[in-house]
C-alpha cells in the first residue's frame, strides 16, 4: 500500500533526522554553543565504528559502548579547555554566539583534517544488520529501524533525565536563563559542560548508527550539521520534543513528496516547510519567546 510505505519510510527517515539533531539541541540550547563542527564529530564517530568493525570485527552496537563514553569525555574536555574561556569572556549572548561560530568553525577543519589524514577522502561504508523486517506487508531495513528505535530510546531517556533528576533540572534551568540559574546556586558552568558533553555523546551515537546504512566520506560532516541545525531551529532551541517532532515532520514531508509528487523536490520541500514554520512561528514549533 503506497500510503503505508510512505508513512513507514517517513518514520525511519524522520527518526534518523531527530536522532542526528538531538545532540545539537543540548549543545546549542543549554551550553549556548553554536557548534559548527557538529557534523564532523558525527562523521568521526562513523569512521570509528567503521574502523572497529572492519579492523577488529567489533559489532557496531558493541562499538557504541566504546565510542559514546569516549565522545562524552572528549566533548567535556573540549568544552572545558576550548570553549569555557570564550564563555567566560563573552559579555552578551550574542557575543558568545559569534565567538562560538568562529571557534567551532576552526574545530570543524581540525576534525575533518584529522579524518582526512587517517582515512583519505574516498567513500566508505560497511554492511551490518542489513536484514529486513516486514511491518504490515512493508519491508523495512533493520538497521534503519534500529536508528529510529534509538532515537526514541535516547529521546525518552533524556526526557526522564532532564525532568526527573536534580542534574537534569539544573540543565533545564540553565537553558531557560543562565543568570537566574546562578542565583539559585546552580553551577552554570558545570551544567553547561555536562550538556555539551551529553550532546557530544549523542552525536557520536547517531554517527555510529547512521554509519550502518549510509555511505560517508570525510567531507560529508557539513551536510549533517546543516540538517541538525534545521531540525533544532524548527523544533525550538533546547526542546527535545520539538526536535523529535520537527525531525519526523521533515521525514514525512520528504517521503510523501517522493511517493506522490516528485522525488526531485524532496529537499526543496524540506526547506520550504522549514521556512514556512519559521514564518508562522518565529521561535520554532516549541520555542519560547525570550525577551
Amino acid at each position, binding site marked *: 500500500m503506497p500510503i503505508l510505505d510512505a508513512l513507514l519510510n517517513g518514520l525511519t527517515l524522520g527518526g534518523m533526522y531527530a536522532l542526528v539533531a538531538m545532540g545539537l539541541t543540548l549543545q546549542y540550547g543549554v551550553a549556548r554553543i553554536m557548534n559548527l563542527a557538529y557534523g564532523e564529530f558525527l562523521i568521526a564517530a562513523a569512521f570509528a565504528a567503521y574502523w572497529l568493525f572492519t579492523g577488529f570485527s567489533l559489532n557496531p552496537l558493541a562499538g557504541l559502548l566504546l565510542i559514546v563514553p569516549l565522545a562524552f569525555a572528549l566533548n567535556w574536555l573540549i568544552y572545558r579547555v576550548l570553549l569555557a574561556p570564550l564563555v567566560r569572556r563573552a559579555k*552578551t549572548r550574542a557575543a558568545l554566539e*559569534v565567538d562560538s561560530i*568562529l571557534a567551532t568553525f*576552526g574545530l570543524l577543519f581540525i576534525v575533518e*583534517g584529522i579524518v582526512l589524514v587517517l582515512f583519505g577522502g574516498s567513500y566508505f561504508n560497511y554492511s551490518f544488520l542489513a536484514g529486513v523486517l516486514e511491518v504490515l506487508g512493508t519491508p523495512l531495513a533493520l538497521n534503519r529501524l534500529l536508528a529510529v528505535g534509538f532515537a526514541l530510546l535516547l529521546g525518552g531517556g533524556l526526557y526522564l533525565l532532564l525532568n526527573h533528576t536534580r542534574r537534569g533540572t539544573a540543565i533545564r534551568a540553565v537553558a531557560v536563563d543562565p543568570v537566574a540559574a546562578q542565583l539559585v546556586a546552580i553551577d552554570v558552568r558545570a551544567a553547561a559542560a555536562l550538556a555539551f558533553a551529553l550532546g557530544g555523546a549523542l552525536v557520536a551515537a547517531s554517527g555510529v548508527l547512521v554509519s550502518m546504512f549510509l555511505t560517508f566520506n570525510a567531507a560529508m560532516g557539513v551536510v549533517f550539521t546543516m540538517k541538525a*541545525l534545521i531540525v533544532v531551529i524548527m523544533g525550538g532551541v533546547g526542546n527535545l520534543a520539538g526536535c523529535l517532532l520537527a525531525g519526523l515532520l521533515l521525514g514525512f514531508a520528504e517521503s510523501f513528496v517522493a511517493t506522490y509528487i516528485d522525488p*526531485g523536490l524532496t529537499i526543496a520541500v524540506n526547506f520550504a516547510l522549514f521556512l514556512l514554520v519559521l*514564518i508562522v512561528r518565529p521561535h520554532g514549533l516549541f520555542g519560547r519567546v525570550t525577551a
Partner: protein
Amino acid sequence: MNGRQLVLPLLGIVALAACAVTPLVGSGYAMSMAINMLMFVSLATAWALFSGPTGYISLATVAFFGIGAYTVAVLGETLPWPLVLVLAALFGCGVALVVGLSTLRLRGVYFVIFTFGLAELMRQLVTWYEANYAGSVGRFVFLDIGQEQIVWQLTAVTAAVFILGWLLKRSRLGLALRMIGDDETVALHCGANTTFAKLIAFSGTAAFMALIGAIVAPRWTYIDPTIAFSPVVSFQVLIMALLGGAGRLYGPALGVIPLVLLFEYLSANFPNYFSILLGVTFMAIVYLVPNGIAGLLEAQLERMRSKPAALPATRPQPNEDAS
C-alpha cells in the same frame, strides 16, 4: 577632517589602485589573487553594511551571489554585458525584497538559519527547474571576458561599496540601522521606520552581492547550482567579516586580506594538512584577537594616542557588537 581620518581612505585608494593595475604588470596568478581579494572584500563589506549595524547575521550571501552568476549563465550570451549586470543586480534586489518582507519577525539565530535555508532552497529549486524544464543542470558560460576586465569591474564595484558605506554611515538610514542593532524596540519608539530601514539595507547590499556573482561567473566556464549556491561562500564571507570586525566600514577588509593570504599560503605549502593547519590557526586567531582585527587596531591606536596626553582611556567605545 584631520590627518588620521585621511589615512584609511588613502590606504584604501592605494590598495584599490594596486589591484586595478595588476592586469598591466602582473601575471595571471597575480590577477587571480586580485580577483579573489576584491571579490571577498566587496562581498564581506557589503555583508557588513547590513549585518554589522543591525546585528542580523545573514547566511544568504550565496543566494544573491548565485542569482548573479545564474543571470550570466542564462542571459550572458544573448544580452549585452552591461545590461546583464544591471539585470543581475535587479534580480538580487528583488529576491531580497521578498525575503526581507517575510523574515521581519525573525531574530537572532532563527534569522541566521532561515537565511541559510533560503540559500539552500534556492539551490534546490534552481536544480529542479533546470533538470525538468531546461533539460540540463549545468550551464556553459563562454564569454569573451578576460581576467583583466573582471579585475577592473570588481575594483569599480568594491569602490562603490565603500563609497556607499561611507555615505550610509552619515545618513538617517545608517542611524536607524545602528539603533536597530542597539535595541529594535527603542528604535521603533524613537520613530525610526525599522522595517523600511532593514529592507532597504538588506536588498541594497543583496544587489551588490548579485552583481559580484555576475562579474565573477565568466571565470568558471561551467556553472551548476552546486557551484553557484555553494554555502561555503556564505560562511567564508561571514567568517572574514566577523574576524575583521563588522562594526567598521573598513573592518571586513582587514579580515579578508590576512585570511585570503593564509588560505593561499596553507594550500600552496601544505596541501595534505591544509584542513588541520587552517583549523588550528583559525582557533588561535579567535583566542588571540577577540575583538576582531579592527578592534585590535583601534585599541592599539588608542593606546598610542592616550599615552602622551595621559588621558584616561575610558571613553565610550562605539558599538562593537557584531552579532
